[in-house]
C-alpha cells in the first residue's frame, strides 16, 4: 500500500466512524408514473404519502433534514434507470421509493444495488424482486404477483372456477402474474385453456374478450393493471361476458380502478389487496389525513405502502444514525419489526419481502355502498405466511447464502 492511499484511508476512517448522514440531508426520491396509466394508483399520491411519513418523523433525523423529491419514469425502464443514476450520482438521493411497472423496477433495483443505496418497492408487482432478482438493497413492501395469484387464484378455484383463460399484459409484470397464477390453478387441480398477450396500454379489449369467450373457460384471468384492467372489465360488461356465465378474476385491481369503473360495472368483482382504507380505525384515521391532502381521494395500497416503507426506513436510519451504507440500512430494517397504521405489525424477510396479511375483497353493489370510496366487502384474510412465497422457494441467492 503506498503512502498516499494510506493517508486517504486514514482520512476516510474517522468519517465512517462518525456515521454521518450523507450531505446532511436524507433525500427520498419517489420515482413513479406521474402522467400515464398508473399515475392515479401511484403518482402524486405516493409523493404525498412519503411526505406524510417524513413529517411524522419530525422532518428531521439527528441533525439531518428529510427531503422528498419525485420524478416521472413514464413506465420506461431506460428512463427509470437514467433518473435513478442521476439522482444517486448527482443529486445525492439516498433512497428510491415506489417504482410501479415491474420492468422499470427491475432496472432500478440493479442500479440501486450497484451504488449501494436503498430501494423501497411499493408499486411493482413482480415476485422476481425477492426471487431471482433479489438484492440486499431492496425491500419489496406492498404486494407481489405470487401473493395476488395465491389469494385471488386459490379463492376462484375453490369456488368452482377450474378452467382459466388469461388476458396478459405483455411485459415483465403480466408474464410473472400469469406464471404465478397458472402454478396456483394447476396445483389446485384446475386447467389453463389458453391466453392472449396484449400490448401495454391497449384501448380496445373486445377482440381479446371474444377469444376468451370462445375458449369456454369458466374464469377469465386479467393479468394486467391500471387502465388496461379498467378497459378489459368495461368491455367484458358491454359484451355480456359475465351474463354469459364466465367469471372475471381481476388479478391486480386497485381501488382507483374500481373508482374509475364505477360500482355499476365493477360490482361482484373479486380482488386482493394488502391495504384498504376502511379496514380498521387506524387505517381510517390515516386515510382521512391522506384524503385531506389529496382532495378527498382515498389512498391505494401502493400509496399506503410508500408511506409505511418510508416510515420504517426512517426509523432504521434513526437507529443506525447513518444513511450512508444502503445495505446496512436494509439490514437494520430487517432487524427492526415494522409497525405502522396502514399495515399494522410486520416483519421484513431475508430476501427483502415485507410480510403482512393479504385480504380478499368483493366489490360492493351500488345499493350496498354508503358513500364515495365505500367499495369493498371483506371475504377472507390470508395470513402472511400463506399469502407470500415460502422463503426457500424463491431462488433468491441471498437466502441460499444464509442457509446453513
Amino acid at each position, binding site marked *: 500500500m503506498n503512502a498516499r492511499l494510506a493517508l486517504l484511508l486514514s482520512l476516510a476512517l474517522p468519517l465512517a466512524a462518525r456515521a454521518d448522514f450523507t450531505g446532511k440531508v436524507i433525500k427520498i426520491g419517489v420515482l413513479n408514473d406521474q*402522467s400515464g396509466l398508473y399515475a392515479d394508483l401511484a403518482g402524486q399520491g405516493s409523493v404525498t404519502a412519503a411526505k406524510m411519513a417524513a413529517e411524522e418523523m419530525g422532518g428531521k433525523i439527528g441533525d439531518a433534514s428529510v427531503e422528498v423529491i419525485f420524478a416521472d419514469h413514464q413506465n420506461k425502464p431506460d428512463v427509470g434507470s437514467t433518473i435513478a443514476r442521476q439522482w444517486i450520482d448527482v443529486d445525492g438521493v439516498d433512497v428510491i421509493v415506489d417504482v410501479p411497472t415491474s420492468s422499470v423496477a427491475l432496472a432500478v433495483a440493479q442500479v440501486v444495488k450497484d451504488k449501494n443505496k436503498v430501494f423501497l418497492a411499493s408499486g411493482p408487482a413482480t415476485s422476481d424482486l425477492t426471487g431471482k432478482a433479489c438484492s440486499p438493497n431492496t425491500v419489496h413492501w406492498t404486494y407481489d404477483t405470487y401473493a395476488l395469484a395465491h389469494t385471488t387464484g386459490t379463492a376462484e378455484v375453490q369456488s368452482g372456477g377450474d378452467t382459466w383463460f388469461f388476458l396478459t399484459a405483455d411485459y415483465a409484470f403480466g408474464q410473472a402474474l400469469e406464471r404465478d397464477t397458472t402454478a396456483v390453478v394447476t396445483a389446485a387441480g384446475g386447467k389453463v385453456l389458453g391466453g392472449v398477450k396484449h400490448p401495454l396500454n391497449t384501448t380496445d379489449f373486445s377482440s381479446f374478450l371474444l377469444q376468451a369467450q370462445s375458449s369456454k373457460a369458466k374464469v377469465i384471468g386479467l393479468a394486467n393493471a391500471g*387502465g388496461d384492467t*379498467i378497459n378489459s372489465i368495461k368491455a367484458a360488461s358491454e359484451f355480456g361476458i359475465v351474463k354469459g356465465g364466465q367469471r372475471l378474476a381481476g388479478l391486480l385491481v386497485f381501488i382507483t380502478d374500481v373508482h374509475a369503473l364505477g360500482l355499476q360495472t365493477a360490482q361482484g368483482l373479486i380482488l386482493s389487496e394488502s391495504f384498504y382504507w376502511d379496514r380498521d380505525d387506524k387505517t381510517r384515521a390515516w386515510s382521512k389525513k391522506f384524503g385531506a391532502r389529496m382532495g378527498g381521494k382515498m389512498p391505494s395500497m401502493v400509496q399506503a405502502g410508500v408511506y409505511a416503507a418510508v416510515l420504517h426506513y426512517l426509523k432504521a436510519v434513526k437507529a443506525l444514525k447513518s444513511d450512508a451504507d444502503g445495505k446496512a440500512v436494509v439490514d437494520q430494517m430487517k432487524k427492526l419489526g415494522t409497525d405502522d397504521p396502514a399495515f399494522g405489525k410486520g416483519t421484513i424477510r431475508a430476501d427483502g419481502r415485507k410480510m403482512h396479511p393479504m385480504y380478499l375483497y368483493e366489490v360492493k353493489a351500488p345499493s350496498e355502498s354508503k358513500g364515495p370510496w365505500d367499495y369493498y366487502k371483506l371475504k377472507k384474510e390470508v395470513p402472511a405466511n400463506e399469502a407470500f412465497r415460502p422463503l426457500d422457494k424463491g431462488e433468491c441467492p441471498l437466502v441460499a447464502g444464509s442457509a446453513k
Partner: protein
Amino acid sequence: MLAVPLQALFGQLLIGLINGSFYALLSLGLAIIFGLLNVINFCHGALYMLGAFVAWGLLEKAGIGYWPALLIAPLAVGLLGVVIERTLLRRISGLDPLYGLLLTFGIALILQGVFSNWFGSSGMPYEMPSQLRGGQALGFMFLPNYRVWVIGVSLIICVGTWAITEGTRLGSWLRAATENASLVSAFGINVPRMITITYALGVALAAFAGVLAAPIYRVSPLMGADLIIVVFAVVVIGGMGSIIGSIVTGFTLGVLEGLTKVFYPEASNTVIFVVMAIVLLVRPAGLFGKQA
C-alpha cells in the same frame, strides 16, 4: 391460422369495423383540415378527449344526457376550434407546415396536462344511454347495441361529409380553395372565413367521436393521445388530405388490426405502422393521394 373457427373470425371482423369507424371519423377531420389549411392538426386527439369531457361534464354537472351532448359537445369544441384558428393558426398560415404541427402539438400537451391535473389519469365512467344498452346474440358473437349504433352513425357522418365535399357548391369551393386559394378569393369568395369553418368542422368531428367513445372507453385525459398516433398513420396511408382515402383506410385498418389481435396479439399495436412503412415505400403519396 386454420385453428381459428370461422365464427370467431366473423366476430373479429365486426369488431375491427367498429374500431375502424373511430379511426375513420378522426382521420376524416384531419384530412379535411390538412387539405385546406395545410396544418397537421396534432391537437386532434386532445379535442376528441375534450369532446368526451364536455359530454361527461354536461351529465355530471347539469344532468344533460347523451343525446343532447352528441350535439352540444361538437358545437362547443367547434367554437374552441374557431378561437384556435382565429387567434393562433392564422398567424402562422403560409409558413412551413412544421410550425402548425409544433403549435398544435403544444396545444395538445397543454390540454392533456391540464385535464390530467384536474381529473387524474384513470378517468371517469360515463353511463351508456339506456336506449342503447344490451345487445344481440348473433350466434357467433354477442353484439352490443351501442356498437351497432357507433358503426351506423359514423358511416352516415363519413358518407355525408364526403357527399358534401363532392356534391355541393360549398364543397366545390372548398376543393377549389385547396387547389388555389388566391384564385378562389379573386372570385369573391371569403377564403379566410371558409378556412375557419373548415377547421371548426374538422375538430367538431373529433369531439363527436369523443362523445361516441365516452360510454365504451373511459373519459380520460389520455384517451386522445392513445389514439392520435394511429389516426395519423391512417391519414398517411390513405394519402394526406384525401377524404375518401381517410374513410376507406380507417375502416380497412380497423379490420386489419382486429385480425392481428386474433393471429398475433402482441403485434396488434404495431401492425398499422408496418402497413404505413410499406405504403410509404411503394406509394409515397398514400393509397388515395395524388402522386407528386
